[in-house]
């Protein structure tokens, strides 16, 4: 029922939008001013210097769109099969119309630009300068309509004419066209219910994505208000906004373009896509780390600190371990994981042994880690002589206590009254500290010169050895971005890559197909190799051994693949091993798990250690991958990623696949935030971090969503898969939080009581 209401309401809103919202935009300039076109052929110019443009077929687009929308809205009143068929038809009509219309629009703008190009080079044809080839230019002018304008401009430059700025650039779809497409897609999607099987799949998908999707939508809606408040409609110098329609169209275009910029760079260009992946890489690690903790019923807010320790570990290996890359690099990755893991194990141990709450301890350790990094990278930390003596004394006392613990009588005393023993040791240490701290003659302050700190006041370490560096994507293809900046076209052995990928796919895929699995391991390997050989030969024959590929200048490095591997590891560990099962059981119901034989203290330490190790692996991106300007440990390590990881884990429902997808979405938003910062004068990238925070808030408060959406049992009833309860009775768990979808960390709340 609500599905019908929602689609119908959406269609009606779109009907209104078709009248008042820009359908497409062109002449988008710096500062985001543009001329927009409203159906049919109503051009509103915000740049102040764009002549209207006429696009054929707009009337038809308008009426077909209106017809489609009316059918969608009206179809909601029909029942069952008729509705679904109507929606299928109308959806196809809407998408077809909008796509065709936008193509027409693009062609018209391109044609107008070609004419402008002809006009621009006409004077040079009539009166060429010595270095200009008039014959070639005339030819270009005649053929201008046949090839893309950008190509013509490039060719004209070769012929000696530099065409600087052509009008009508930057054509893009507008808000109304987008809404039409969305309504069309929704109608198609829900129309699929004609086939019951597709309907069931649809239901399952909808249940899984309902909460995150609604939360994201609400967060974007809230951000829309902020965007509209902050950013006035960008207009050219002499443009006067006349009339309510122009004002409204301007507002809608501002909003639409802000969101378009936010997503289009990452999803529409190769470089943007790679950059988004690069932003996503550390978030995958931290998201996995937090999600892993959640699964075990632990709240790891310590990812920032664990990131720092991982980075420090990676730096040490990268600076001091000699040897070839295949030794140093794995060692560095491993030590990064160990560093983060040990830092994570501390609060795990404190919780397991002393019942100290891990939330507060991980927060405290974040501060300690930050101080530690600052200390290691500060230029010349100075200790007074007496302070050094105190530190030495403390070290001695700790060492002596550890040795003392090996002596049986001391151990016995410790066991009988641990507090008294500790107090005794503390008093001895305190008295000793006061004694040694007395100033003596000839005291000189001790200045530490840490060997890994790069000289100068900049808080960074020396650069890692070549062997410990993970090359960025362009460098992997032998491109030196300093020599040839920008996008480089290089021949790539695509045949080998595709053949290798096919081999892996066949090997993995064969394991899933029963008949092939029975052939055994050797058979699968043979099949994989055979397919790869055939593919390689075929592709080599068509010349794909040196396929020219455009490699954009991106920060992306293969640590992204390590992140994906980590996700696979987490999935296998959690869902395919005994340990993982025990951890999840502990997370869901600690008491029951303990009764079932789970070793809770050991699990707590292990879970925190693995969680910390995942966070520590961010060092592969930031230190080994050189994502911070250069291949060194820098104090600018963005530890905020550790907190963003909480949001990523929540959005990804603590599942590795969800986490990777959520991290990618955040990567897109972060990448788009920078683009938005540039495109608009009054917007800042912080709008994005606000959106992220709102997403978390809405997901956390999923209780505000209607029950039938969040509660699987009630949802099944609403969909008619389950019989309705007889009047007066409530379904078990239906009215309470007992049957919630497993999105939020299970039992984190319950673990609070023991701090």
């Amino acid at each position: 029922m609500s599905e019908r209401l929602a689609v119908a309401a959406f269609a009606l809103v779109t009907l209104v939008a078709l009248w008042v919202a820009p359908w497409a935009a062109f002449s988008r300039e710096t500062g985001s001013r543009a001329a927009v076109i409203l159906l049919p052929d109503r051009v509103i110019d915000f740049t102040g210097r764009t002549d209207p443009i006429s696009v054929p077929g707009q009337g038809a687009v308008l009426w077909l769109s209106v017809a489609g929308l009316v059918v969608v809205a009206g179809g909601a009143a029909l029942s069952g099969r008729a509705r679904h068929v109507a929606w299928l038809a109308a959806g196809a009509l809407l998408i077809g119309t909008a796509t065709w219309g936008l193509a027409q629009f693009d062609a018209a703008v391109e044609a107008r630009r070609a004419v402008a190009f002809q006009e621009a080079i006409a004077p040079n044809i009539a009166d060429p300068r010595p270095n200009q080839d008039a014959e070639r230019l005339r030819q270009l002018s005649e053929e201008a309509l046949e090839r893309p304008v950008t190509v013509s401009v490039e060719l004209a430059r070769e012929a000696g004419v530099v065409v600087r700025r052509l009008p009508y650039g930057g054509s893009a779809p507008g808000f109304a066209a987008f809404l039409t497409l969305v309504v069309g897609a929704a109608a198609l999607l829900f129309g699929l219910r004609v086939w019951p099987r597709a309907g069931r799949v649809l239901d399952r998908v909808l249940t899984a994505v309902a909460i995150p999707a609604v939360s994201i939508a609400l967060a974007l809606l809230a951000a829309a208000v902020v965007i509209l408040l902050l950013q006035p409609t960008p207009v050219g110098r002499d443009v006067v906004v006349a009339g309510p329609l122009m004002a409204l169209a301007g507002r809608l275009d501002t909003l639409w373009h802000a969101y378009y910029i936010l997503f289009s760079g990452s999803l529409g260009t190769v470089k943007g896509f790679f950059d988004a992946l690069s932003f996503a890489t550390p978030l995958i690690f931290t998201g996995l780390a937090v999600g892993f903790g959640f699964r075990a019923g632990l709240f790891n807010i310590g990812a920032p600190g664990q990131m720092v320790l991982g980075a420090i570990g990676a730096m040490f290996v990268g600076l001091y371990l000699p040897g070839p890359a295949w030794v140093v690099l794995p060692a560095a990755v491993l030590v990064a994981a160990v560093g983060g893991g040990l830092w994570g194990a501390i609060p795990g141990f404190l919780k397991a042994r002393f019942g100290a709450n891990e939330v507060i301890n991980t927060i405290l350790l974040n501060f300690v880690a930050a101080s530690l990094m600052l200390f290691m990278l500060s230029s010349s930390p100075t200790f007074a002589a007496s302070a050094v003596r105190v530190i030495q004394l403390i070290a001695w006392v700790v060492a002596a206590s550890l040795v003392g613990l090996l002596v049986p009588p001391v151990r016995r005393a410790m066991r009988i009254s641990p507090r008294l023993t500790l107090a005794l040791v503390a008093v001895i240490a305190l008295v000793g500290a006061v004694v040694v701290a007395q100033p003596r003659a000839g005291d000189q302050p001790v200045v530490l010169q840490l060997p890994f700190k790069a000289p100068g006041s900049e808080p960074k370490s020396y650069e890692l050895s070549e062997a410990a560096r993970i090359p960025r994507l362009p460098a992997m293809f032998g491109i030196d971005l300093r020599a040839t900046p920008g996008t480089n076209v290089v021949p790539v052995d695509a045949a080998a890559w595709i053949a290798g990928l096919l081999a892996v796919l066949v090997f993995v895929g064969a394991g899933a197909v029963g008949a092939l699995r029975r052939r055994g391991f050797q058979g699968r390997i043979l099949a994989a190799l055979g397919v790869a050989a055939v593919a390689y030969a075929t592709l080599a024959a068509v010349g794909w051994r040196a396929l020219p590929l455009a490699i954009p200048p991106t920060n992306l490095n293969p640590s992204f693949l390590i992140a994906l591997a980590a996700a696979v590891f987490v999935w296998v560990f959690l869902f395919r091993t005994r340990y993982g099962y025990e951890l999840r059981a502990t997370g869901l119901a600690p008491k029951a798990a303990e009764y079932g034989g789970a070793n809770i203290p050991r699990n707590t330490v292990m879970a925190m250690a693995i969680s910390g190790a995942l966070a520590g692996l961010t060092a592969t991106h930031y230190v080994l991958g050189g994502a911070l300007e250069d291949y060194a440990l820098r104090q600018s390590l963005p530890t905020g990623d550790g907190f963003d990881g909480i949001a990523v884990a929540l959005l990804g429902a603590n599942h590795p696949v969800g986490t990777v997808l959520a991290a990618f979405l955040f990567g897109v938003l972060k990448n788009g935030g920078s683009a938005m910062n540039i495109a608009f004068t009054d917007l800042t990238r912080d709008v994005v971090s606000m959106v992220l925070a709102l997403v978390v808030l809405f997901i956390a408060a999923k209780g505000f969503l209607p029950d039938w959406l969040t509660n699987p049992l009630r949802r099944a009833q609403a969909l008619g898969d389950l019989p309705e309860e007889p009047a007066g009775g409530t379904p078990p768990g239906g009215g309470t939080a007992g049957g919630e979808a497993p999105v939020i960390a299970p039992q984190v709340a319950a673990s609070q009581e023991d701090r």
Partner: protein
Amino acid sequence: METVVLLALLGSALRATTPLLFAALGGMFSERSGVVNIALEGIIIFGALAAALVTYFVELPAITQNPGASVWYAPWIGVLAAMLVGAGVGWIHAVVSIRYKADQIISGVAINLMAIGVPAVVLTGLFGNSATSATITNRLPRWGEGAFQFSPLVYLAFLLVPLTWYVLFRTPFGLRLRAVGEHPEAADSVGISVTRMRYAGVMLSGVFAGLGGAYLSIGGFNQFITEMSGGRGFIALAALIFGKWHPLGVLGATLLFGAFQALETQLGGGQLLPPTVVQSLPFILTMLVLAGFVGRSVAPKAIGKPFEKG
């Protein structure tokens, strides 16, 4: 050591303690009612922002006519605004975690994340840069003599210690608040509204943390800077646990942290220890304390658990 230096150290320790004390006392109301308030950090930031902005806009008309004009009431309205905004943010935390029964820590984390983005967006909208607000001319006054010249908020913070003690342990309101945090079912059965008490506790904590923020921006300084709080909310939370959820314990714990912060600034020249080492000492100490080496700290029993009315 000379008395002058010691006095200066004591003075700056008291100043450093003030925002921690506000936030920790506030956190006490929230946690005693059974709601973990990890959002203190964010509320401090929102309070600081509100205080600086409201003070700026209240004094603006007078300042444009005469730069340096004294508008004595401007910072006080700023303080009021910080309290209101603090209560408002606390209310959001309350709605999400009490009404919608979200995980209280997640809700708090969301508010802290919001405190990173929202101030930057607001500042960009008002002043065109995302890091600082415009400076204000009328800060809070200073009362006192010599090294002991303090903002009124410092006195207020220390006055609040006996006051909160009285409210928590000697009034019906305090009794109910504690009951709701210890055994909500029992409290509910004698007719106390668990929800209302928890709303009150969380919003009060917002008011207090907002005061702490106001002290940072218009008490100790003359503008708002992003990340001004620098983790004070988290430190306050640690102090709250360290102080065993008791006003006097909280006073002691925050004084300890404040003293270390003052030491860090006093030893800033690196005379004795590198400041980074001094910085991390209180955190390590707190961890040892939480691990029970110095004595156990027992939380309100029902903390962190949403209340399901049976």
